[in-house]
């Protein structure tokens, strides 16, 4: 394993709105890692402050949509005096190749503000090794 590096703060990226929204609050893009094994695609999204009850995952044939909501009630009586980051809900979507995943087998887990989605590949999408003669 590579030696542990010093962590840097990543500034949250705000979602640029293409449509008018009824709710004016700013939303953010969760930092996402996507990796693949022969069996499945793994999508990991950072959404600090979001628990499993407040994550919404929608899988359509050609898109994965994830939204995470944070609980603002705990901020109600608080007055900010020094801040380094902003807070808000999270939203992000990714395009999927139609037919590549078995929608019924998708699993999701949320731990420490991180959502981990496993999308098992449909049989026909599993890589086939080409034999070399």
């Amino acid at each position, binding site marked *: 394993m590579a030696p542990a590096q010093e962590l840097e703060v990543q500034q949250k990226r705000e979602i640029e709105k293409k449509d008018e929204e009824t709710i004016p609050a700013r939303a953010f893009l969760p930092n996402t890692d996507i990796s693949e094994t022969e069996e499945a695609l793994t999508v990991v999204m*950072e959404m600090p402050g979001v*628990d499993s009850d407040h994550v919404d995952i929608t899988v359509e044939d050609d898109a994965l949509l994830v939204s995470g909501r944070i609980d603002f009630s705990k901020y109600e009586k608080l007055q*900010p*005096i*020094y*801040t380094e980051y902003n807070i808000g809900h999270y939203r992000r979507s990714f395009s999927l190749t139609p037919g590549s995943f078995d929608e019924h087998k998708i699993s999701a887990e949320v731990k420490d503000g991180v959502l981990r989605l496993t999308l098992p590949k449909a049989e026909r999408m599993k890589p086939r090794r080409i034999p070399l003669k």
Partner: protein
Amino acid sequence: MALGFADPFDALFRFQRALDQQRDSDWLEDMTGGTGAFPPINIFQRGSDDYLAIIEMPGVSKEDLNLQVRGNSIRISGRKIVDYGGKASIHRRERVAGDFDRTISLPVELDPNRIEAEYRNGMLSLTLPRAESDKPKSIKVT
């Protein structure tokens, strides 16, 4: 023209603006701590006597997190691990991982015996009560 009655949706937007306004405010100016270090910290005041620090560190396990308080300094250290196993091929990599060790000094005296820490969903909340000796006392003039 606008009546300006409280709109719950609007409240969130206004709060986000308030957070922006206090971005790197000079409340910590004279102290040694600097900005830019991980993890990022927001400090709030609750009432007139308590401070609340809320710190984001998604993906850090409670077991990998250490907290120390001394005087008016808070030290937060630990490790954030990101691991996808040996055989995965990476399509996209945006998360960062590594060790962290950050000390932040507050310009107020804290009561160390009443400090509370709660870690949930990747967010650490520290309740920092002000020391009695730090609170202003009114003096009666005779």
